[in-house]
C-alpha cells in the first residue's frame, strides 16, 4: 500500500470556503487532531463504500445523523456522545475501533475536547468514494502513541518511602485502597535476590552470613556482593541472548557452525560484569567495529566494541538456497526484527510488505533499515585491540625497507658477476645458439626414446625405474609409493631437494619389494666440492645394519664411491677428481649386478673400474621388503659426516643393473619432469627428428663460432632447467588469450591500478599497496625471500600472522563466467551472492582454491547466479564465515585483475600478464638490466618489468636471496624474525565488514521480484527522517541515533527490561513491543522517571538494578495482604511480589550447583551436554546451542527457540516437566551426587535441613520434618533400601518441590 498526502489535500480545498463559518482555531483543531483519526481509524467501516451499522463518518451530516444506534454525538456533551462512549470503551457493546487496540488516551482526550467545543466539522460534502488514508495522515495520528512522546520528568509523589520508585508505586496502591504485603523474611529475600541477580541459589554460607548480619546495611551489602560477582554477568548475558536469538549454529540442513560465535557471548558477560554504560553497549551492538575510540579490554587486549556486532550473524541460514535474494530478504528481515524489538521495542519488520498496520512505521522505514544492514557484509571480524593489531608494524615496515636495500646491494653485486657465468652458458650465439638449442632438444627426445626403448627391451626388468623422485613440488614417488619425507630442515626449491650438509635429508617409508640387483641413479649439484662423506642416494636396512649408497668423497677427496656398511662392498675405483662447477649438475649412477659386480658411472660414462665381490661378505646384499628404506642426502643413519651439502634434482631406483649403454642414454636424455611419457611410437615422428638432427649437426659444423651475442638464442624456453639459462630471464610472463567475444559492459577491475581502491580491504594484513616489487620476508629457513611480487593487492606482506579479507564492490552478475587473476596459498576465492556466506561449492556457489605462487587465472562459473547481486571475496580459512580449510594454517593471497565474460573459452589463461620483456641482446644487457632493477627495487621504485625480471632471476638462481650472503642482511632478517615471532594470530569473531553502502529499493508488497524506488538509508521517519551520509553502510549513524537519549524509546525499553527481570513483569508487560499492539505502561510516570534516572546515571545498568532491588516493593512478601487479590488480580500495582518459575538455565545451574559440581570456569567454546563428553559442570550460559538440537531440559522449561527476540519468556506448565523431574537420568544423577555430600553421621533431621536449606534457602519447618520422617521411614522400609539410595531418593523428591521450582 502506498499513500500520498495528495488526495486529502485536494479534497480539502473546496471546503475551505464552505467552512468559512468555522473559527480558524476550530478548523485547525479538526484538521490536525480529528480528521486524521477519523480517516485512519473509522472510514474503513463507515464511509461511502461501507456503512457498518448504517453509519457514515466521512462527512459532517453522516456523523451527526448517526446510524442504527442513534446519533453519534451530542454536540457539547462528550459524556453523552455515543462516539466518545464507544472509543473510551465505556459503552457496553460498542468498543471502537473494532478489532483494533483502544485509541491512545491523548487522542481520546482530543475527541472529548472536540465534542465539547461543539464538534466543529468542515466536511459538508459527502464523498462518493472511499478515501485511502495517506501515510502522512496515519503518521499524524499514530505519532501520538505514548511511547513516541518525549520522556517527561515527572514529579515524584509524596510519601514516606525513601525510594522515589516506591512513592510512585505506593501512590497507586493507596489510591486503589490496597494494602501492601509485609516485608519478606530474610531467607526468602536472599533466595529471591540471588536468583534475580545471578540465576543461582544462595549457598548455605551466604545464607548464614546474611542471617548473622543484623545491620541495616545487610541487604544492600548482599546486592553489592551479587552485582560484583561474575555470576551476575553470566546471568544477565543470558537474558540478552534471549533478545538476539543467540545460537552457535545456523540451523537448517546441516546446521553449520557459526565460527567463534561464543566470543559474542563472552563479550556480553564481560559487558554486564564491567557495567558498560548501556548507550555505549547499544552503539557497540550496532556499529562497534566503526567506533573511532573502541573500548579495549586491556587484560585480554581485545577490541570489545568490535565484538558487539556479533548478533547480526546469529541468524538462521538456509541450506544452499536456490534463490539467494529470497534468503537475504529473510535474513535482513530477521536482523531488523531483532534490532528494532531489542533496542526500540518496535516491530519494524511488520512493515516489510506494507506500512505497519498500527504503528507509525512505514514500509519505507523497513527498507531504510534494510539498506543499512544489507550494505554490511557477513565476516569474521578481527577483534584484537588496535594496539595488538598494530604490534611492531612500524618497526617491521622499517626493517623490511632496510632488508630490501641490503638485498638490492647484494643483487647489484651478483648481477655484475654475471657475464663470466653467462659466458659459460651453452648455445650463446645467435643463429648457432638457436640451432644448438634445437639440436639439443631433438637429441633429448631421441635419447629419451632410445632410453625408454632400451628399458623396455630389458628382458628381465620390470617396469623401470621402480621408484622415481623429481622433487618438482614435493617428495612424491612418481612410480611407486615411497614418497620422500623432508627431515632436519630439508626443503624443496625450484624443483630440487635442498640439503644443507648439517642434518637435512629425506627418507622414505619401508620398501615395497625386496632388492638385490639394482641401480642407484641421481642428478646432483654440489655447491662446494670441499665436503666429505655425504650420501646422495642410499638404500638401507631399517635396523641400520646394511646399506648401499652413492657417496661423495668419503675415503678419497673429491671422488665418488659406492658406500656400504663398514665398507663391506666398497672399493676405491680410481675415478677422476670431481671438478664440476658449483652451478652444474652431476649425473651419478651405481649399478649392482646380480653377480655382485658393482660399477659407478659419472655423467653417463663408467667412473673408474668396476669390481666384483672379494668374498662372500662383500657379495650382493639383499635388502628385504618392508625392512629397508631409502635416504636422500645422507650416507646412512648414524654415521659421522654422512650428510650431503647440495641439491638433488632427480633420483631413480631400478631393480636391476642398467647396462653401460642404458646409463649413457639416461644421461643423454637428461632429467625428466612431470609424468613418465609413453614410449614414442615409431611413427615417423622420430624418423623426422633423426633426419632433422643429422641436418642440424651438419649445419653446425659449418657455422661460425660464438660471437658473444645472445639475441634470439635466448628466446627459447626449451631448457629452463639450467640455472643460468638466460631464457629464464625472458620468461616474465605469457600474454593471456585475448577474449574472443566482445567485452561485456560489466565492470572489469584492474587491481594493479588505482581502481583497486574500489575494493574493500579488511583486517590488519592488507597493506593496500598496489606497486610492483612487494615481497614477504621469510620467517624461517636460509632465504630472505622467495618471491618478488608483481603489482596488485596483496595480503600478509608483513606477516602471515595477520588477518586479511578482500572484497570487491557489489555488482550484478551479468556474465556466465568471472575470471580472476590471483596468486596465493591456502586462500579461497568466492563469489558471494546476496551476502549469503555459506558456500558449499560447485557451480551454484562458485569458488576456487588459490594455491599458486605465481599469478594465475581462476575462472568461476557464474551462469547459475546470473541476475543476482554479488561480490567477490578472498579469504583464508580463519577469516571466513565458512572456512574451506583447516584453521590456524598460514597463507596469503594477491589479486591482479578481474574479467567478466561469457563462454569458457574466453577465459584468460596462462601466467601473469606482465610486461613486454626487456631487450637483452648481450650478456652485459642482462647485467645492466639486473643492476638497474635491483637498484630501483632497493628504493621501492621498481617497475613491473623490473620486478618480474628480479623474480625470475631469483627463481632461476641467478640472484641469491640467501640470508647469509651478508652479515648485515643476516642481522636485519634475524631482527625482523624476532619481532615477527612476537606477533600473535589475531582472534576473530562473527560480525559485519563495513563497505560502501547502497540504498535498497522498496519491494512492492514485499515481493523481492518487484523492486520499486530505492529508499535512502536513515533512522525511523517518526524519530528522524534525515537520510544518512551515502558513503558507508549507515550503521554508525544508526548506532548514534539508537544509542541516544534523544529518542524516547531506547532508555524506556531498557529500564522496562530491567524491571521485568527484577519484578517478573515489565511496567510495560510486552517488553519487546511498545507499539499499539503492546501493553501500555501500568505506571507511565514511573517508567519515565526510571528512564530519566537511567540516562542521568550514565546509563548504568548496575545502578538501576541496585535501586530497583532496594525498593520496598521488591522486598515485599509474595503472599498478598488479605483482600488484595480480588481488586488487583494481575498484581499490576505490585502490592506484593510476584512468584516466578525458575528459568530452564537457572534450574539446570541449580542442579549442577547442588550436586557440588559447579565449575566456575568462564568463557570459551560452548559445552556439549547432549553428546559425549556430556559436559554438565558449567553454567548453562556456556552450553553449545545447536539450532536443530536444542537442549531438551531447557526447552522443556521454556527456553526460547533462537529465531527472534524473546524478551519475556513463557512459563508454561506441562506434564513433561514433571516427567523430567521425576524420571530424567540427569536429575536422578544430580540427586545422588547431592545426597552423597550430606554429612554421613548427621541425624536425619539435620540432613533434611541441609537439603532444604540448599534447595529452598531455609531449613525445614516442624511439619515438613514430620512429613520427611514419615517418608524416610517408608523409604527405609523398602526391602532393597540402602542408606545411599534412601537419601538419593529423598533428595530427588526435594528437587521436585514446587518451592524449589519457584522463587517467591
Amino acid at each position: 500500500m502506498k499513500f500520498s498526502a495528495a488526495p486529502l489535500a485536494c479534497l480539502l480545498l473546496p471546503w475551505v470556503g464552505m467552512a468559512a463559518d468555522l473559527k480558524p482555531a476550530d478548523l485547525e483543531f479538526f484538521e490536525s487532531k480529528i480528521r486524521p483519526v477519523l480517516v485512519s481509524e473509522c472510514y474503513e467501516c463507515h464511509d461511502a463504500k461501507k456503512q457498518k451499522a448504517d453509519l457514515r463518518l466521512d462527512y459532517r451530516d453522516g456523523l451527526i445523523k448517526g446510524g442504527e444506534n442513534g446519533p453519534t454525538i451530542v454536540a457539547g456533551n462528550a459524556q453523552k456522545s455515543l462516539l466518545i462512549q464507544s472509543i473510551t470503551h465505556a459503552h457496553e457493546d460498542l468498543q471502537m475501533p473494532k478489532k483494533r487496540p483502544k485509541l491512545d488516551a491523548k487522542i481520546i482526550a482530543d475527541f472529548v475536547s472536540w465534542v465539547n467545543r461543539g464538534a466543529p466539522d468542515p466536511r459538508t460534502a459527502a464523498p462518493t468514494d472511499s478515501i485511502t488514508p495517506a501515510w502522512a495522515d496515519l503518521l499524524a495520528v499514530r505519532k501520538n502513541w505514548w511511547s513516541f512522546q518525549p520522556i517527561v520528568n515527572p514529579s515524584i509523589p509524596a510519601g514516606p518511602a525513601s525510594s522515589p520508585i516506591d512513592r510512585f508505586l505506593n501512590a497507586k496502591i493507596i489510591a486503589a485502597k490496597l494494602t501492601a504485603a509485609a516485608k519478606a523474611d530474610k531467607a526468602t529475600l536472599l533466595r529471591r535476590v540471588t536468583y534475580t541477580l545471578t540465576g543461582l541459589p544462595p549457598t548455605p554460607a551466604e545464607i548464614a552470613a546474611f542471617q548473622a548480619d543484623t545491620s541495616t546495611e545487610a541487604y544492600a551489602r548482599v546486592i553489592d556482593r551479587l552485582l560484583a560477582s561474575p555470576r551476575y554477568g553470566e546471568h544477565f548475558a543470558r537474558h540478552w541472548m534471549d533478545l538476539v536469538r543467540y545460537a552457535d549454529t545456523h540451523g537448517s540442513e546441516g546446521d553449520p557452525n557459526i565460527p567463534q560465535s561464543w566470543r559474542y557471548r563472552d563479550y556480553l558477560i564481560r559487558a554486564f560484569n564491567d557495567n558498560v554504560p548501556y548507550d555505549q553497549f547499544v552503539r557497540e551492538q550496532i556499529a562497534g567495529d566503526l567506533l573511532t575510540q573502541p573500548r579495549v579490554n586491556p587484560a585480554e587486549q581485545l577490541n570489545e566494541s568490535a565484538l558487539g556486532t556479533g548478533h547480526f550473524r546469529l541468524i538462521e541460514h538456509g541450506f544452499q538456497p536456490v534463490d539467494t535474494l529470497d534468503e537475504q530478504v529473510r535474513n535482513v528481515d530477521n536482523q531488523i526484527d531483532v534490532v528494532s524489538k531489542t533496542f526500540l521495542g518496535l516491530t519494524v519488520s511488520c512493515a516489510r510488505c506494507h506500512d505497519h498496520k498500527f504503528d507509525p512505521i512505514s514500509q519505507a522505514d523497513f527498507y531504510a533499515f534494510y539498506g543499512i544492514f544489507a550494505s554490511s557484509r557477513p565476516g569474521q571480524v578481527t577483534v584484537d585491540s588496535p594496539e595488538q593489531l598494530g604490534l611492531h608494524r612500524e618497526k617491521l615496515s622499517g626493517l623490511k625497507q632496510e632488508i630490501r636495500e641490503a638485498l638490492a646491494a647484494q643483487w647489484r653485486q651478483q648481477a655484475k658477476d654475471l657475464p663470466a657465468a653467462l659466458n659459460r652458458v651453452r648455445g650463446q650465439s645467435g643463429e648457432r645458439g638457436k640451432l644448438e638449442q634445437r639440436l639439443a632438444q631433438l637429441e633429448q627426445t631421441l635419447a629419451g626414446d632410445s632410453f625408454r626403448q632400451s628399458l623396455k627391451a630389458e628382458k628381465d626388468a620390470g617396469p623401470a625405474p621402480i621408484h622415481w623422485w623429481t622433487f618438482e613440488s614435493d617428495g612424491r614417488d612418481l612410480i611407486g609409493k615411497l614418497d620422500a619425507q623432508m627431515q632436519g630442515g630439508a626443503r624443496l626449491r625450484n624443483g630440487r631437494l635442498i640439503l644443507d650438509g648439517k642434518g637435512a635429508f629425506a627418507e622414505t617409508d619401508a620398501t615395497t619389494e625386496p632388492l638385490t640387483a639394482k641401480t642407484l641413479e641421481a642428478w646432483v649439484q654440489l655447491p662446494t666440492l670441499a665436503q666429505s662423506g655425504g650420501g646422495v642416494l642410499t638404500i638401507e636396512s631399517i635396523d641400520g645394519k646394511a646399506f648401499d649408497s652413492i657417496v661423495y668423497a668419503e675415503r678419497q677427496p673429491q671422488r665418488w664411491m659406492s658406500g656400504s656398511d663398514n665398507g663391506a662392498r666398497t672399493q676405491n675405483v680410481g675415478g677422476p677428481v670431481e671438478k664440476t662447477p658449483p652451478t652444474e649438475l652431476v649425473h651419478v649412477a651405481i649399478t649392482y649386478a646380480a653377480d655382485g659386480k658393482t660399477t659407478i658411472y659419472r655423467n653417463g660414462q663408467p667412473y673408474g673400474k668396476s669390481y666384483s665381490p672379494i668374498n662372500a661378505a662383500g657379495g650382493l646384499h639383499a635388502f628385504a621388503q618392508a625392512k629397508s628404506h631409502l635416504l636422500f642426502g645422507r650416507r646412512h643413519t648414524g654415521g659421522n659426516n654422512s650428510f650431503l651439502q647440495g641439491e638433488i634434482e632427480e633420483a631413480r631406483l631400478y631393480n636391476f643393473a642398467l647396462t653401460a649403454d642404458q646409463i649413457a642414454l639416461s644421461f643423454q636424455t637428461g632429467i625428466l619432469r612431470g609424468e613418465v611419457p609413453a614410449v614414442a611410437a615409431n611413427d615417423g615422428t622420430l624418423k623426422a627428428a633423426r633426419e632433422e638432427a643429422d641436418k642440424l649437426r651438419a649445419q653446425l659444423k659449418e657455422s661460425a663460432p660464438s660471437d658473444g651475442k645472445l639475441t634470439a638464442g635466448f628466446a627459447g624456453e626449451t631448457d629452463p632447467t639450467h640455472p643460468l639459462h638466460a631464457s629464464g630471464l625472458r620468461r616474465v610472463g605469457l600474454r593471456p588469450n585475448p577474449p574472443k567475444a566482445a567485452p561485456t559492459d560489466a565492470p572489469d577491475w584492474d587491481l594493479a591500478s588505482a581502481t583497486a581502491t574500489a575494493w574493500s580491504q579488511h583486517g590488519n594484513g592488507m597493506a593496500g599497496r598496489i606497486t610492483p616489487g612487494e615481497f614477504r620476508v621469510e620467517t624461517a629457513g636460509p632465504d630472505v625471500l622467495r618471491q618478488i611480487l608483481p603489482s596488485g593487492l596483496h595480503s600478509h606482506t608483513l606477516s602471515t600472522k595477520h588477518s586479511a579479507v578482500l572484497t570487491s564492490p557489489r555488482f550484478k552478475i551479468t556474465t556466465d563466467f568471472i575470471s580472476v587473476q590471483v596468486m596465493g596459498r591456502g586462500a579461497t576465492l568466492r563469489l558471494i551472492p546476496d551476502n549469503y556466506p555459506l558456500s558449499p561449492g560447485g557451480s551454484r556457489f562458485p569458488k576456487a582454491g588459490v594455491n599458486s605462487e605465481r599469478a594465475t587465472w581462476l575462472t568461476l562459473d557464474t551462469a547459475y547466479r546470473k541476475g543476482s547481486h554479488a561480490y567477490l571475496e578472498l579469504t583464508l580459512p580463519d577469516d571466513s564465515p565458512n572456512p574451506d580449510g583447516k584453521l590456524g594454517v598460514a597463507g596469503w593471497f594477491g589479486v591482479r585483475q578481474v574479467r567478466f565474460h561469457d563462454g569458457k573459452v574466453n577465459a584468460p589463461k596462462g601466467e601473469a600478464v606482465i610486461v613486454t620483456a626487456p631487450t637483452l641482446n648481450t650478456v652485459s644487457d642482462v647485467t645492466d638490466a639486473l643492476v638497474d632493477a635491483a637498484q630501483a627495487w632497493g628504493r621501492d621504485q621498481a617497475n613491473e618489468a623490473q620486478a618480474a625480471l628480479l623474480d625470475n632471476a631469483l627463481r632461476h638462481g641467478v640472484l641469491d636471496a640467501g640470508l647469509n650472503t651478508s652479515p648485515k642482511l643476516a642481522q636485519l632478517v634475524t631482527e625482523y624474525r624476532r619481532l615477527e615471532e612476537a606477533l600473535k594470530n589475531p582472534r576473530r569473531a562473527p560480525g559485519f565488514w563495513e563497505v560502501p553502502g547502497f540504498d535498497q529499493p522498496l519491494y512492492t508488497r514485499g515481493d523481492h521480484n518487484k523492486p520499486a524506488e530505492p529508499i535512502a538509508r536513515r533512522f525511523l521517519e517518526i524519530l528522524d527522517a534525515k537520510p544518512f551520509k551515502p558513503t558507508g553502510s549507515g550503521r554508525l549513524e544508526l548506532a548514534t541515533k539508537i544509542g541516544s537519549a534523544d529518542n524516547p524509546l531506547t532508555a524506556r525499553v531498557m529500564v522496562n527490561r530491567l524491571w521485568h527481570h527484577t519484578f517478573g513483569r515489565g511496567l510495560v508487560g510486552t517488553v519487546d513491543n511498545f507499539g499499539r499492539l503492546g501493553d501500555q505502561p501500568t505506571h507511565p510516570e514511573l517508567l519515565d522517571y526510571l528512564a530519566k534516572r537511567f540516562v542521568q546515571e550514565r546509563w548504568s545498568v548496575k545502578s538501576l538494578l541496585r535501586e530497583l532491588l532496594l525498593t520496598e516493593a521488591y522486598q515485599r512478601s509474595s503472599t498478598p495482604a488479605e483482600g488484595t487479590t480480588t481488586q488487583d488480580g494481575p498484581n499490576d500495582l505490585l502490592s506484593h511480589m510476584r512468584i516466578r518459575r525458575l528459568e530452564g538455565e537457572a534450574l539446570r545451574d541449580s542442579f549442577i550447583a547442588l550436586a557440588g559440581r559447579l565449575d566456575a570456569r568462564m568463557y570459551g567454546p560452548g559445552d556439549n551436554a547432549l553428546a559425549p563428553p556430556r559436559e554438565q559442570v558449567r553454567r548453562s550460559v556456556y552450553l553449545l546451542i545447536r539450532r536443530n538440537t536444542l537442549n531438551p531440559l531447557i526447552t522443556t522449561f521454556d527456553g526460547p527457540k533462537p529465531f527472534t527476540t524473546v524478551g519475556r519468556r513463557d512459563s508454561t506448565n506441562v506434564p513433561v516437566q514433571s516427567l523430567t523431574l521425576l524420571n530424567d537420568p540427569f536429575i536422578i544423577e544430580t540427586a545422588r551426587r547431592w545426597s552423597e555430600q550430606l554429612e554421613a553421621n548427621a541425624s536425619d533431621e539435620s540432613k533434611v535441613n541441609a537439603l532444604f536449606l540448599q534447595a529452598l534457602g531455609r531449613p525445614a519447618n516442624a511439619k515438613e520434618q514430620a512429613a520427611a520422617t514419615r517418608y524416610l521411614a517408608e523409604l527405609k522400609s523398602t526391602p532393597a533400601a540402602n542408606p545411599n539410595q534412601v537419601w538419593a531418593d529423598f533428595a530427588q523428591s526435594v528437587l521436585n518441590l514446587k518451592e524449589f521450582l519457584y522463587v517467591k
Partner: protein
Amino acid sequence: MSNKMNPLSRRELLRRCSLGFGGIALSSLLSSPAFGAGTTSTKPKTKAKNVIFCYMSGGVSHVDSFDPKPALTRLHGQSMPVPIQRTVFNNNGKVMGSPWQAKRYGKSGLEMTNLFPQIAECADDLTLIRSMTSKVSEHAQGNYFFHTGFPFMGHPSAGAWLTYGLGSENQNLPGFVVLQSGGAVVPHGGVGLFSNGYLPGQHQASILKADGALALANIKPGEADAAQRRRLGFIQEIDQAFAETAREPQVEAAIRNYETAYRMQAAVPEVCDLNEETEATKQMYGLNSPDKLTASYARQALLARRLVERGVRFVELSCLTAGIGAGGAANPWDQHGAIAKGHGAMAHQVDQPIAALLKDLKQRGLLESTIVIFSGEFGRTPFSQGSDGRDHNPYGFSLWVAGGGFKAGTAFGATDELGYYAVDQPLTVYDFWATILHQLGLDHEKLTYRFGGRDFRLTDVHGHVIKPILA
C-alpha cells in the same frame, strides 16, 4: 500461564489449570488479554477430529506416482522443451520417462502408476491433489514451510496449531505425536519442525518410538510404582503448604501436572503395546514383512491408528532411509540418483502399511473422523538429474488425503504436460492447511496467536479453503 489470570476458586482453578496436553487455547487466551488471540467462537459441525500425516521426507516424485505423464515417456532422452529453472544440484539431464506404468484404479478410475500398488487399490478413498506448489526447493526450508507455513524455525507446527485449536481428547496422552521407528530420524531442519513455536509448551510434539523400549523420553519411572506413589505423596504434602501461601494459579497447575504425568506413565506404554493387536491386523500392516523397513514402518502405521483411537489429535509418521541415491536418514525419498531403485525401495516400505492403515481405519469407522495425509515437501523434476535421478521440483507436485470428509476418489488440479509446473488450480501449502483446518472445524484466519506484536497463523496471511475437494 499468565500473571494476569484472575483469581479463581481453588476448584475452578484446578479444573481450568489442568493444562496438561488439554487446555483448549486457554492459556493463550488468558495471556493475551487484548483481542485477536483465540480460536473459533463456535465450533461448526465437522467430521474430522484427527490427522495422520504420512510425511514423505525428501520429496516423492509425483510424475512417477500420482501424476503420470505419458509425455515423459514419449520425450524420454530428449532435451526439455521448456527452459529449466535453477535446480539445487544444477546437474540437469534430459527428459526422463517414468520406470513405472500408469493405469486407472478403482471405480473412480484414478490414474496412478504402480509405484504404490496397494495404496492405488484404495483409489476410491483418495483425494488426489496434483497442483501443489511450494515456495522453496531445499529440504529444511521445505520441511519448515510445509509443517509451519514459514520456511524457517520458530513457528508452531501444524500439529501444535491443531492441539491449540482443539485441545486433546485424552488428558493422559500428548495431543501431537511424531512417530519414529528403526533408523527414522527427524527430517532436515531438526526438531523445530515439530515445535510449539510461540504457542504454550503443551502443544509441542512428543516423539514416540514405535519400537523402542522407552517410547517417550522420561516416561519410564526409575522406581517401582509404590515407591513413586510414596514420592508423590511426600511432594504433594509439602507443595500444598507452599500453594496455600503462594495463592498462585501457576503453582497449582504445576502441582496438578504431577497427576497427569503419573497417569501418562501408564497410558503411554499401554498404547505402544502392539501385542494387543490380532495376528491378522499385524499381518495386514506388514509387521512381519521380510522387508525390515516395511516391518518397521508398519509399526508406526499401526501405532498411529491406536493413538487416534485414543483421541490423539495429530500423528506424524517418519520414513526410514533405504540409503539409495542421496536419500539419507533425514530425507529418505531424496533420490537425486538411482530413482528407480530408491523410490522402489521407499515405496515398498510404506505402501502396505499405509494401505492397511486406510483399510483398518475404514473398517473401524475411524476414517470419517480421521484425515490421512500423504505428502513430501516438494516433488521431483520431470527431467533427470545426472542419468537416473531427479532433482527437487517445488513448482508442481502431488499429495493425497483420505477420510475426514474429503471427496473420495477424485483428483484436483493438474500440472502441465511434463509435470513441471502446476497449471490448473495451483495450490499453496496455505490453501492446503486452510482446508485441513476447515475440516477440523477451525477457521484458519481465526486460529491466531499474538507473539512479538503480531497475530500469527498457520497460513501466515494467505490461504483459501479448497471447497471443490470437500464431500
